[in-house]
């Protein structure tokens, strides 16, 4: 089983290619050109698979497929970060990965940064209450308070293909609120917005890929992602793909204004 993973939650996009016994992370400074570089990013990950023999070399003289081609097939899987982070970046990666999966009938594993971060802490032996933060707009942070170890559900956590999450249910266009509406997760509570600061109850606080006063920086580890990718349940087909969505929907200013005017906060 081989996999590609793509995380476009920030302008520094992250990717990973792997098979049962190897994995290789990638980073790309994509800024505003993520959508323009997607095929090239896939090509780089495929080159890694080929380098350790997980992809057969193309036949000599064979014509290169359109866009460089996509060489994962039945039995492989795709992973994608569901956030939190840049909603535009997340949607680009999610849209691209869903389309690849649809054509090749591959499962998509949605992995959120909190679960990835929490599993990283667990791998380092951290136990007990912790707070995890991810950068949000206007100096705020998305945050969750967790008790480690997380429940061992066999699932990778929020955002997986078999768990409906925010963005899939608010079909009437009303403000989505400030947290996920999905059911069931390995996290003990839904992420929410808060200050970029240490937890007031003194629990150890970690900033995901950033640091501020009162917290330590935590970079989710590729080896942990590798285990999540290999161990996640695998579902294929249209219905499974439709449930892969960003973890966190931030209402637009227009939605907030409308909700305030119509006295339907969080509607």
């Amino acid at each position, binding site marked *: 089983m081989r996999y590609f993973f793509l995380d476009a939650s920030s302008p520094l996009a992250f990717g990973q290619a792997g098979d049962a016994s190897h994995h290789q992370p990638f980073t790309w400074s994509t800024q505003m*050109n993520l959508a323009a570089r997607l095929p090239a990013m*896939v090509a780089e990950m495929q080159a890694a698979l080929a380098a350790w023999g997980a992809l057969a070399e193309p036949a000599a003289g064979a014509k290169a497929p359109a866009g460089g081609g996509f060489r994962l097939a039945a039995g492989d899987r795709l992973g994608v970060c569901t956030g939190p982070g840049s909603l535009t970046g997340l949607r680009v990666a999610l849209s691209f990965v869903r389309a690849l999966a*649809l054509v090749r009938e591959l499962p998509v594993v949605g992995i959120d940064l909190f679960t990835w971060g929490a599993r990283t802490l667990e791998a380092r032996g951290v136990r007990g209450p912790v707070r995890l933060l991810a950068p949000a707009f206007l100096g705020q942070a998305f945050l969750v308070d967790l008790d480690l170890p997380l429940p061992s559900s066999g699932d990778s956590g929020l955002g997986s293909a078999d768990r409906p999450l925010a963005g899939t249910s608010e079909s009437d266009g009303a403000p989505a609120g400030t947290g996920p509406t999905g059911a069931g997760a390995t996290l003990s509570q839904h992420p929410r917005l808060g200050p970029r600061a240490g937890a007031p109850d003194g629990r150890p606080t970690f900033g995901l890929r950033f640091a501020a006063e009162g917290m330590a920086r935590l970079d989710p580890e590729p080896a942990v992602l590798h285990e999540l990718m290999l161990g996640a349940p695998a579902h294929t087909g249209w219905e499974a793909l439709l449930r892969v969505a960003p973890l966190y929907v931030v209402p637009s200013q227009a939605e907030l204004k409308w909700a305030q005017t119509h006295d339907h906060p969080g509607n």
Partner: protein
Amino acid sequence: MITLGIESSCDDTSIALVEDGWRVRASLISSQIEVHRRFGGVVPEVAARKHYEAILPVLREALGTAGLGLGDLGQIACTVGPGLLGPLLVGLSTAKGLALALELPFIPVHHLEAHLAAAFLAREQEPAYPYVGLIVSGGHATLVLATGPRQFTTLGRTADDAPGELLDKIARHLGLGYPGGPVIQKTGAGGDPARYPLPRPLAGRGYGFSFSGLKTAVLHVVRDEGDRLVLPDLCASLQAAVRDTLCGKLEAALVETGVRRAVVAGGVAANAVLRAGLDELAGRRAIDLLIPPIALCTDNAAMVAAQGFHTASLSGPDPWRANACADWAMGDPFPVL
């Protein structure tokens, strides 16, 4: 050859399957009008969210309608600009993923060029040149001279509001609802278009448009008339002013260029008053006038597939590097950021 078209530049998620550039096997649209109605206009972030939710279900339904599978596709064309960036990126990323996995050509398509292609699609014929093109919608008022595939000379464009935007704003001010074009047309039916003398902006002064002054003039009428205001007459007068402005510029361009063919496209081209004015112009000047049927005037993916089919060979050496672009100029190479 089946071309899959994807359109997501504003608030309509559309997927179409078009055979050989003119036979529409399926063309489906998931409209967000009801979602945006409460805001009085399109909210880009909400639109992007809704495109993400809708695009795969619409694709599935389109394939089912056409009786085709993904394996039947021959190439994939997608609008990459101009438009709203977030919505464009959902369509573009989906299109690239499909094309890459299916190992099919990917064709970046210009939204306004596709609108013009819709007129030829409706006639089931290949685009013919030269022609004078007028694109009028919620975001555009553009007059071009088309001399070949992806060869355009811009004659004029709006300096401020687009006509659809004007109608939206007036409708909102009058409390008529959203979108403005259809409600103003409905309200103005049977109204007296001569009751309120509104300006014809920049009439006789080149090919540029400006509709903000017309908007102000309407607001002054509303203010001055107060309770005496006859709403149907105002809506009829407004539509007449828009019709005269657009028809006047188009006629001037036809006369000056000597071109005998005109193509009018975009959502505002669905307006019955404008269409009647254009028909009158075409008859008087004996020109070949192409206006798509209403279903092909508003944003749709059939026009994208048709344009993609006819311009596939002009996509350049590496269309995979195309990025979404809010203000891609007609005829320019596809945007790469």
